[in-house]
């Protein structure tokens, strides 16, 4: 076990180093892209806790991101709160909403839960439209442009990058501690067999609801950063596709692997924004001729890649990592 701990600490240290030094080597625009990857990563870690550990599926986490984003927007525009102070509040509001959703979720099994949460993602954008007097309705709210506080001299994009990744790393550590201690073990017991867990004296409902609350908290933080980055929220800032993207990232990353989720976040961001690049690459293959500019081609590329990944990597990147590293860690373990 010590070897695994060491390996995880080492890879975390590597990640921190990479995060700190990466902006020096990429353009300003790329650092903004990496910031967006970080936002996806935060939301995915939360979703990983929910799906990978407590075993509940949510196809509606975009709605919790929207709640976070709107909290930030309302606090900033209507109450003049500085953007970074709204982030924790956004997380807490979304987390509270998550607890509320977690209660009816207790009664529902896999597919029913998946579809009800999908319903939440679809129905949620209607609420800001209805209650337009403090959410800005369909036009939305315009926030201040992101700007480094305390007189720091960085570009807005670099500031976004450091802000996002500082929060992401902090939340990653929180998740790691949570999953390696009692809550994490309890969630796994619940995931593997609810009946057996209940028979062993675990309060199943409380832990399942808690998982929903925590994962919604993560989504809320990500949504708040999203709002700060785009400096604008309206019902279309958090489309239904966002919830779908999160689940895609989760499946590609491997639901119960924190390291894999990083790959999942990058995958979703890249494919969402650069699906035409995949088509261009396919165009170079022999016997294949596609025009990346044609409408529908990016969608075909996204779908085809998704199907291939699921068929080739059924346990996601996390499962692959696990298989590659197991000989290493088990040998270290047996010698220590």
């Amino acid at each position, binding site marked *: 076990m010590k070897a695994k701990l060491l390996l995880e600490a080492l890879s975390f240290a590597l990640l921190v180093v990479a995060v700190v030094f990466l902006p020096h080597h990429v353009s300003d625009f790329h650092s903004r892209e990496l910031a967006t990857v970080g936002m996806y990563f935060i939301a995915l870690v939360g979703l990983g806790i929910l799906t990978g550990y407590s075993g509940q599926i949510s196809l509606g986490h975009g709605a919790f991101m929207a709640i976070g984003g709107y909290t930030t927007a309302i606090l900033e525009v209507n109450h003049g709160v500085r953007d970074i102070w709204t982030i924790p509040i956004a997380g807490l509001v979304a987390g509270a909403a998550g607890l509320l959703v977690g209660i009816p979720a207790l009664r529902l099994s896999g597919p029913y839960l998946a579809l009800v949460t999908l319903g939440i993602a679809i*129905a949620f954008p209607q609420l800001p439209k209805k209650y337009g007097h403090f959410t800005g309705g369909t036009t939305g709210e315009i926030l201040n442009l992101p700007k480094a506080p305390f007189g720091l001299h960085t570009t807005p994009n670099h500031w976004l990058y450091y802000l996002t990744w500082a929060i992401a790393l902090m939340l990653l550590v929180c998740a790691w501690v949570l999953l390696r201690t009692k809550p994490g073990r309890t969630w796994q017991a619940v995931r593997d067999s609810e009946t057996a867990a209940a028979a062993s004296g675990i309060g199943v409902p409380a832990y399942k609801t808690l998982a929903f609350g925590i994962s919604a908290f993560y989504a809320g933080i990500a949504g708040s950063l999203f709002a700060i980055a785009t400096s604008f929220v309206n019902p279309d800032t958090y489309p239904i596709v966002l919830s779908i993207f999160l689940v895609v990232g989760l499946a590609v990353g491997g639901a119960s692997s924190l390291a894999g989720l990083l790959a999942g976040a990058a995958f979703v961001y890249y494919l969402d924004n650069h699906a035409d690049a995949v088509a261009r690459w396919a165009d170079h293959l022999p016997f294949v001729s596609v025009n990346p500019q044609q409408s529908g081609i990016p969608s075909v590329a996204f779908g*085809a890649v*998704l199907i291939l990944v699921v068929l080739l990597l059924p346990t996601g990147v996390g499962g692959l990592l696990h298989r590659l590293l197991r000989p290493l860690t088990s040998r270290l373990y047996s010698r220590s």
Partner: protein
Amino acid sequence: MLAFTWSELAQQVVDGIRDGGIYALLALALVIIYRSTRVINFAQGEMATFTTFVAWSLMNQWAHLSFWEAFPLVLVIAFAGGVGIERLLVRWVEDAPLLTVVILTLGLALLLNGLTSVIWGGAEKQFQGPFSTQTVDIAGAQISEQDIGIVAVAVGLVVVLALFFRFTKLGLAMRAAAVNRQSSRLVGVRVGWMLALGWGFAAVLGAVAGMLIAPIVFLDPNMMQTVLLYAFAAAVLGGLDSPVGAVVGGIILGLTITLVGRYVPYVDSTLKLPVALLLIIVVLLFRPAGLFGRVSVRRV
């Protein structure tokens, strides 16, 4: 708010049942796949759209067939497509976790949606349906042949499917394969092909739904997306493994959305969707497997 009249109520009920019939058709396809393979098929809407485009091309582009000449051809194509998708792609994830299967069908949905716009372009197309839109006046409500046709087809298909699953040997084998794969294999049921048949039937149902809906909403690559979401809601409401539930769920959903949007004060068109969702959640709280679904007993 406008004054209440009985004839308007009748009209709203007719509209609600018509919309419900559309949701029911696609919900039925979802239920057939879920029953036979335990897969929630997110590609159902795009499969239906794709086959409807094939029908359009048969009628307007490749050959100038009439609707009823194209109809059987399209059903055969849809059936072959559904079986092909199961044998080529879905069979590899049969025993995978729910999440993996969901992602596979989502990928399939994206792929088909993209292919549809690549082949036919994104522009809306007029689709000549089989029923006339001429309305007759019944108790103050305007009912068209099209409205009656949609509901009749939905109900008719349920009856046919129920008879098929209840009284034929193939239907029995399909039910057996869905309930317990190992035991079915042991008694000689070719489980893999039963699952493929389930996909084939669902594709056929989707094609029928698509061809009935296209005359109402215009044919474009995204036409089934909203319908699919309502179909999911209908299937969950009725119970994911109950064909009767799919139709009843669809019609309840259609009626609720229309009537609540019209008659409940404060609920306007923007709140219809959240209210419908709330209704479903409340129903599921009391019946976690939907109105007609069975709660399975799990062993530790």
